[in-house]
């Protein structure tokens, strides 16, 4: 059903120029920057992006759990003047372990002071609808993950919300369970058996977004912005193997890989990392693994991200940081949804352990200014040692405490692997003496 074609889609929620930052003000803790969004009736909208892109923050702003630092979230009243109600499904299910399934589902009704008899009828109806019959008296710990998320869903829809917010609802489930739940939800939606007028779903699974959504907003990270808006007009039910479906998935991968190169190359110079760049904690093993995978047949040095994600069973949240870390060290280029290995990484793939370390050390010192900086200071000092605190403080001038910590952990891990410097956790100290 092509709901997007409906002529008079009434808007439910209007998000105007929302920005949000955590902790100290300023650019350091900013997670959302100037986001606009309108949610209409009868559509499923996906927020797609990586962790740190602020999509969960946006969802919580709409839920009323967070008040954004700037901008406004408006719930637009319908013809009778009542504003739309919202309800949320959580990634972690967020069930009360001391309440039974029935009591969990009744929770929202209880808060609304619905009389007990009516509460029970409505809760049982919702449990029935969502396929949990027979589990009314079970405690959450007795249920499987899929069943628990069904409880979460029943609890969310029993209060008759006009807007259902879903925060990565299927990412804590195994592949099969997630697929069943998705299909069931789409069936209920298509048959109009839920009172819900619109669904907003946060995900980092591209296929899931294409499978479910009428519209996808792709978020960029640090800070989160809407990078692209994609209308999905494939008819439901959709088939993952359908060529247009695949084409759309590839297209989204391309859009998501295109962005990081585009931003820094404003002044013509290639994408550069500075001291102030936040680094992701990516294991050198994962980087080596990806290089080997792309280097080998059938990819032979160039692979599309969509295929990689498929063959490695990685979600974009896992795949993108690795690919970007490779790009950061000039081991790979990301463009048009493809990963293309550079000569240095092809050399890396065929090298032995010590050569690999040497290649990695070279790349690290050449392309990661923070590693360079630490090494230079260690070289300059007579003691060849420097407290990590000092670098953390330096980083905190540019980024939030959490990011500074993470960045330093990333560089420590890489530096240790490359044997560029050593780190002693007990003394929180960088040094040049590697135990031999």
């Amino acid at each position, binding site marked *: 059903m092509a709901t997007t074609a409906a002529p008079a889609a009434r808007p439910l929620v209007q998000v105007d120029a929302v920005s949000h930052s955590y902790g100290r003000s300023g650019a350091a803790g900013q997670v959302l920057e100037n986001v606009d969004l309108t949610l209409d009736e009868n559509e499923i909208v996906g927020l797609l992006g990586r962790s740190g892109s602020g999509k969960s923050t946006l969802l919580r702003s709409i839920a009323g*759990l967070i008040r954004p630092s700037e901008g406004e979230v408006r719930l637009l009243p319908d013809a009778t003047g009542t504003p739309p109600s919202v309800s949320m499904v959580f990634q972690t299910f967020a069930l*009360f*372990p001391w309440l039974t399934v029935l009591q969990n589902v009744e929770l929202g009704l209880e808060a609304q002071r619905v009389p007990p008899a009516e509460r029970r009828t409505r809760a049982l109806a919702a449990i029935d609808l969502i396929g949990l019959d027979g589990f009314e*008296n079970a405690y959450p*710990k007795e249920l499987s993950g899929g069943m628990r998320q069904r409880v979460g869903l029943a609890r969310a829809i029993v209060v008759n919300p006009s807007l259902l917010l879903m925060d990565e609802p299927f990412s804590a489930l195994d592949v099969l369970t997630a697929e069943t739940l998705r299909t069931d939800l789409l069936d209920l939606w298509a048959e109009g058996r839920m009172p819900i007028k619109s669904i907003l779903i946060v995900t980092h699974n591209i296929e899931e977004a294409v499978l479910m959504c009428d519209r996808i907003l792709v978020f960029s990270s640090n800070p989160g912005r809407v990078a692209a808006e994609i209308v999905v007009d494939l008819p439901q039910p959709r088939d993952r193997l359908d060529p247009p479906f695949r084409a759309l998935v590839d297209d989204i991968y391309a859009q998501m890989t295109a962005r990081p190169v585009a931003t820094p190359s404003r002044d013509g110079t290639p994408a550069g990392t500075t001291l102030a760049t936040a680094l992701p904690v990516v294991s050198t093993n994962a980087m080596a693994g990806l290089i080997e995978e792309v280097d080998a047949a059938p990819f032979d040095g160039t692979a599309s991200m969509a295929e990689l994600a498929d063959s490695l069973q990685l979600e974009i949240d896992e795949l993108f940081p690795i690919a970007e870390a490779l790009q950061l060290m000039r081991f790979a280029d990301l463009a048009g949804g493809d990963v293309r290995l550079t000569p240095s990484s092809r050399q890396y793939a065929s090298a032995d352990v010590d050569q690999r370390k040497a290649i990695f050390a070279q790349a690290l010192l050449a392309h990661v200014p923070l590693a360079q900086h630490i090494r230079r200071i260690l070289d300059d000092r007579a003691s060849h040692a420097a407290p990590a605190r000092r670098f953390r403080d330096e980083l905190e001038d540019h980024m939030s405490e959490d990011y500074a910590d993470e960045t330093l952990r990333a560089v420590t891990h890489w530096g240790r692997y490359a044997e560029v410097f050593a780190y002693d956790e007990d003394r929180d100290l960088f040094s040049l003496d590697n135990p031999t």
Partner: protein
Amino acid sequence: MKVASFPARAVRPFSRILRVTPPNLADLIAFVLLAGGAVMIVRGAVGVAEPLSRLSITPVALDPWNLPWYALRTTLRMFAALLASLVFTLVVATMAARSKRAEQIIVPALDILQSVPILGFLTFTVTFFMHLFPGQQLGVECAAVFAIFTSQAWNMAFSFYQSLRSVPSDLEEVSRGFGLSPMRRFLRLELPFAIPGLVWNAMMSMSGGWFFVVASEAITVGNTTVALPGIGSWLALAIQRQDARAVAWAVGAMGVLILLYDQLFFRPIVAWADRYRFEQTASAEQPGSWAYDLFRRTRLLKLLMVPLLGCGRMLMMLDRMPAARPAKRDDTTSPIGEIVWKLIVALLLVAAVWLIVDYVGRTLSWADAFTAIGYACLTLLRVIVLIAVASLIWVPIGVWIGLRPRWAERLQPVAQFLAAFPANVLFPFAVLAIVRWHLSPGIWLSPLMVLGTQWYILFNVIAGASVIPTDMREAASMFGVKGWQWWRSVALPAIFPYYVTGALTASGGSWNASIVAEAVSWGDRHLEAAGLGSYIADATVAGDYPRVALGIATMSVFVIAFNRLVWRPMYAFAERRLRLA
């Protein structure tokens, strides 16, 4: 789905139960137990209301037939104090968790009160409460209950506060998303989440409480001696009369008492609290309790729960706060208010310091302070040596037990029982031994300090050893890791976090126990070990308030410094490096 329309736990309407449910055997047993409990409470309560003069008319007598009555009075004091601690916890800890300003004062205060020698305060509180109810037993009762309260409340409040602060964020978002009112949120989310921690701490508190109830029933302050009917007074009299048989009776009564309250009170509560444990997967073993199972099997007695549940419902009905769409900015307080608040706190601090210095300084000189510090060092030395010795003994034993699940299962309750048993009841035997063999009190009184507290080390080590992952043990045995290497690289690191918890509790308890352990008597023989404990005890007997205050202050400083400088860093290290994630 019709089958399940009544949840098993729900209590049906009153009339319905009467009509449909015939009582069963479980009802009968439970009814007799409960009725007995009610009668005992009433009888005990009547005694409390009598005038003080009755105590001299019917003084405590060493007649075994009186012992159940004394035991009852002692137990009632314990539960009164527990109730007071619970109310205190719910009010104060909730305040601390809800208000930032209250938090700034309450949390450090609790932290310090947790580690301060409570026995020393007895002197002040007895005088206060006796003035509050002149000529009434109630005054002295209150003082005794207050003494127990001070040994129970702080860690319960602290645990509750920590639970409230660590409520899972997703559940909190659910309650905010649904617009649960503060009352409802408390009953539905915060209280249930905090219950397991609260129950565990209440149990620990009760264990500590027995120690203080024995010490606080027969109180001598200056010229006044009051002996409330109870096991503590019985013991004091037995010691005064040098009656070893009577002491043995007291030990037996204490054992029975602790066993009973454990089986009838705490086991059922622990079994019940298990459902509130925050975990998403069912755990392999659940704590069981025959008493709890009995009450669950009853049919008619569920009626007793009706008023309780009704209260809960009433509370929920009462609060009619509108469920508004909750969106607020991160709480920002006005800077002026903040400054004013800090000024008030600072002023109060200065005033308090001035008050103490003025009070103590009027009668005491610097020499007294140095004396107190010298004694404190002696006691410190004792605590360190004893904890080390106790560790050397109990760590290997605890590890041995912990690695054998069958033994651990059987011995863990025994260790907990021993920790609950008030060691001061056993002191007379130690004194007898010292007198008979002419031992040096300075050395041989010391073990009494850890007599009651060493068990914390044992049962924490057992707990730690029993959760060493099987794969770690298998790996160790595969590579032939044995002997000292096994201890160094497998057992000790694995139990270290648990050991620190146990040793911290044990050392805190030992400081406290020093007040009663460093100065003991048997009839007219007084044995004393030089130390801060005996310093405080002597000052108390002499009614020398400034010295008592000085002694307590010195001990507090030592305990807090010891915690900060030794245990905290060890704890942090254990958390960072040795936690088996």
